[in-house]
């Protein structure tokens, strides 16, 4: 077992989100709306050494098996993340995140005059125009958004 994995307790059942880009761990939690209020054990490791000069973040969520619909939202925040589903201490599924056709809620449209930034009860929805170039477009105002400048809700 690698040193990095030892830093975070092994889990019996649940999901391990590994290889999150350094510093993005908390945003990943926010995007998945994981806040621990349901009582499940959540471990977060930030700045875990990974390889010679790199660092990564890791999140372990016990007793929760995250589906594609949830984890694919992460493709914008942490494109290199891997999702590991653990059952009875065994890795039974490992997958990469890939951009879905639309991303709702997690980002704020960068257009200040967009209805999604108003007082109306409305959540942002962004259509993914180009999966490789990671081009998103606000479904409401139609603005094409720069992924690197997106703000989180």
């Amino acid at each position, binding site marked *: 077992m690698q040193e990095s994995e030892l830093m975070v307790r092994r889990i019996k059942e649940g999901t391990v989100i590994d290889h999150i880009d350094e510093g993005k761990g908390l945003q990943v939690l926010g995007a998945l709306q994981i806040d621990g209020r349901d009582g499940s054990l959540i471990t977060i490791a930030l700045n875990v050494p990974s390889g010679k000069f790199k660092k990564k973040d890791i999140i372990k969520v016990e007793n929760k098996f995250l589906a594609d619909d949830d984890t694919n939202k992460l493709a914008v925040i942490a494109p290199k993340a891997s999702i590991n589903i653990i059952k009875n201490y065994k890795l039974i599924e490992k997958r990469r995140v890939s951009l879905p056709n639309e991303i709702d809620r997690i980002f704020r449209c960068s*257009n200040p*005059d*967009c*209805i999604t930034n108003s*007082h109306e009860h*409305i959540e942002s929805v962004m259509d993914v125009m180009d999966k490789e170039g990671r081009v998103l477009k606000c479904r409401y*105002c139609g603005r*094409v958004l720069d992924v690197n400048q997106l703000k989180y809700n």
Partner: protein
Amino acid sequence: MNEFYNKDIISIKDYNKDQFEKIFDYTQKIMNLDPSSRREICKGKTLSYLFYEPSTRTRLSFESAMASIGGNSLGISDISSSSTQKGESLADTVKIMSIYSDILVLRHPLDGSSRFASEISTKPVINAGSGTEEHPTQAIQDLFTIKKEKKKIDGLKIGIIGDLKYGRTVYSLLSGLGNYDVNVHLISPESLRIRSDSIYEIRKKLSFTESTNLEDYIEDLDVIYVTRIQKERFPDEEEYLKVKGSYVIGLDLLKKMKDDAIILHPLPRLDEISNDIDKTKNAKYFQQAENGKHTRAALLGLILNENGF
């Protein structure tokens, strides 16, 4: 079933050339009908309008369109005197208005407001101007006018002049023109150039040049589309006065134009087109306003009748 039946009109970007042509055909059909058969098209139907910023002209165009096809209109044209001023959400107001009517016409200062309203409304929604970039029915009216006057749109040289930064009609018109093979020249003061972040998609469909000098292009243009230059857009009065004069269409400029060039303006105008142009054969802006009534009537008729009319 006609493809527009029960559908919203949110963005000009949702339409293609075939659909424009279909709308033009129905507009011509409306124009050819005698008034009494025209009034059968939406007999007994009600349009409601909801204007979060004043635009008497657009509202009246919709009202007269609806009246011409036998329907009636009700609504709020001055939001400051209504309950929304007391903090009612757009969502609630839209919900209520869609109970009162068969179709809803919305004008709102925020981008995306019509898309949002269409999700809330149980009735079709027409965007009568939202945010800074969308005014689809104005663009349809403009395209129809060009087609009717020039008998075609493909192959034309079109100049768009004035305030290109803040005029929402310009962005919608450019998106619409992106469906055609046209040469567009954008002519504006440096400070009122088109916003580059807003034309990301237009650029892929349409080739255009940008310039500050109208005289460089005037003799080549088939269509001269003039927009209003509003004083409040300028940081100071001096700058406004400097710019204002250079884009006024007067008789001297008319002499340099092609004999069959047409002059359009979404109206209301200030003094971008001098009054002595009005009686020339090139002036088509009042025609354009009339066409607006007929194109809107055609759209209303298509949306509200399953099998067209």
